């Protein structure tokens, strides 16, 4: 029994948002998201590996494996090191396999692109972006050493180890009682045919952010509202007549760090639902924009977000929920997820404007992000003048994507389309 002693093992609980992910992870919905950075030149594997090695030291929280306890899942620190490889599998493939101990993120590259894939239980978009930007900082400053002889640029992510590890849900949980029950109304659900291996098909459109902003301003609204409305209209155009009685509901993740102080590298997001009922309202873009705008104004308030956050945290702190064995919790969370899912048509996540130190910007062409999806889903972010809107979809059909991008191109926006899947030929 006496064997070599290892370092004492560190373990952490999953944060509130992360708890829903492990029981609901499967081949069809891997709960993995990807950040892409396209550089001006081809990626050098060795230098990227060195950069990863340096970055992981600053983010020890990501060097962990997910394990099952008797009552809860937990992260356990590990000695595993991330290994950089050339992209070898479809986007957002499984990262977490029950009973297997592997890292929950992966850095791959292909030609000019660096990809960071991360399991959602570990971090949300903003958390992972901190890691990604640090990685790019080390990569670029090492690959182009000559250019940075005089002075190294600043690394703009400033957080202590403890701050990065922080469970911000716990920190901002007030324990206030929220008794208002949320009723899930059935939303229209997009159906389609999947491929044999359930792979995600990604269609990205690159455009000039200024053109889109100008369009949004012409409708007297913001970029997010405009594109949300456009997505709704694109979905509406494909709705079968029988399904038109259901509202279209878009789930929009919100970065809670904006509303509640936190710089955590883990999850800290909530979601709001933007709903539009085409039976009660008109289907022209102006009306949809008006409806969406009102929904955003109603849902996106600190008060509502705090209530929602507290309600979810209260479940976790509930004495009965805590002593229920994990396998029963798994069933409950799968059931809850299914119910919640019935009320959602699609998801739109806007990472927003990504900034890097101005000395690093000349080496980067664009940033891109998308998430594993059970239904067509939009992920978007902008860098400099480039806005990238990515559709991730498990379905073969591309009609919603076509409607969406055609509406933009008809307005005169120049779009470049890139697809992850290619017809055989």
């Amino acid at each position: 029994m006496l064997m070599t002693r290892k370092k004492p093992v560190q373990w952490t609980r999953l944060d509130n948002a992360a708890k829903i992910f492990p029981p609901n992870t499967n081949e069809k919905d891997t709960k993995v998201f990807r950040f892409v950075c396209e550089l001006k030149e081809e990626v050098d594997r060795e230098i990227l590996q060195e950069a990863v090695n340096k970055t992981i030291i600053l983010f020890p929280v990501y060097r962990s494996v997910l394990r099952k306890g008797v009552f809860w899942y937990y992260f356990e620190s590990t000695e595993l090191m991330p290994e950089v490889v050339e992209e070898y599998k479809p986007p957002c493939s499984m990262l977490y396999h029950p009973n297997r101990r592997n890292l929950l993120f992966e850095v791959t590259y292909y030609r000019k692109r660096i990809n960071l894939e991360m399991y959602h239980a570990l971090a949300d978009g903003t958390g992972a972006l901190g890691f990604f930007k640090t990685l790019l900082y080390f990569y670029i400053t090492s690959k182009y050493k000559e250019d940075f002889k005089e002075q190294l640029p600043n690394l703009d992510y400033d957080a202590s180890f403890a701050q990065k590890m922080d469970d911000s849900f716990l920190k901002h949980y007030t324990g206030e009682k929220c008794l208002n029950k949320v009723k899930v109304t059935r939303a229209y659900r997009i159906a389609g045919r999947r491929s044999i291996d359930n792979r995600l098909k990604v269609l990205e459109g690159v455009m000039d952010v200024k053109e889109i902003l100008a369009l949004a301003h012409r409708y007297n609204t913001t970029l997010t509202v405009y594109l949300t409305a456009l997505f709704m209209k694109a979905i509406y155009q494909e709705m079968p007549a029988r399904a038109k009685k259901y509202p279209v509901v878009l789930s929009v993740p919100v970065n809670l760090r904006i509303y509640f102080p936190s710089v955590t590298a883990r999850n800290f997001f909530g979601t709001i639902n933007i709903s539009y009922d085409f039976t009660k309202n008109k289907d022209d873009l102006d009306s949809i924009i008006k409806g969406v705008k009102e929904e955003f104004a109603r849902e996106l308030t600190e008060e509502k977000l705090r209530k929602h956050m507290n309600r979810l945290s209260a479940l976790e702190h509930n004495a009965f929920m805590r002593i229920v064995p994990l396998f029963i919790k798994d069933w409950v969370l799968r059931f809850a997820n299914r119910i919640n899912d019935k009320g959602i048509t699609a998801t739109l996540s806007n990472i927003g404007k990504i900034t890097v130190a101005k000395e690093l910007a000349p080496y980067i062409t664009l940033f891109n992000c998308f998430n594993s999806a059970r239904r067509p889903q939009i992920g978007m972010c902008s860098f400099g003048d480039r806005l990238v809107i990515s559709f991730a979809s498990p379905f073969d059909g591309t009609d919603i994507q076509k409607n969406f991008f055609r509406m933009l191109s008809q307005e005169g926006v120049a779009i470049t389309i890139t697809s992850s899947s290619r017809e055989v030929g």
Partner: protein
Amino acid sequence: MQYCDHCKVQINGAHLVCPLCGGIIEQKESAKEEEVFPQIPTIYQEFNVFIRVLLFISIAVTVISFAVNMIFTKESRWSILVAAGILCMWISLFFIIRKRNNIPKTIVWQVGLLGVLSVLWDASMGWIGWSIDYVIPSICVGAMIVMAVAAKILKIGVRDLIIYFLVDGIFGFIPIIFILFGWLNVIFPSVICVAVSAISLSALMIFEGDSMKTELNKRMHI
């Protein structure tokens, strides 16, 4: 870069049809541009051939034994035993496959499972007592030996093993109940089992007490 006239968009990469609308796009010489995504062939997931063959043999054997039973030996019902045996094998195999990534866990699950199954067999065949006389004590001790050997060979760390060793050690105390209630015909396997469990559990507490405490805290946190 290629261009789709219908969608009015530029298209990156060498496509034959527009990835949005599926319409034909004009081929240009310069279309042999750089790929942005690698082309990954379809991944086909298939059941292991071994599992399929085993499943087929199981079904065939069960059906044949029922048929033979009905034709030649109407008075006895031995084919039910065959079917039950095959069913038990599959239950055991199911857990082995499911937990295969964690060897100590697989072993402990098998100890529990085989213990229960052996008692069920013993009871359903007119209680003789072989399950608690021999099977349960010997699998508890056997599992401890297998775990210790496997840990050495496969280099499984102390902290990954400790809980399973503890659970098996606690299982090893169950035969005390059999001894106290005088259910046993043969006492020596149970005595050995309890003695071995007591010695290994005390060794575990004395030498690995701290690791055990952290490990328990970690796994049992509520």
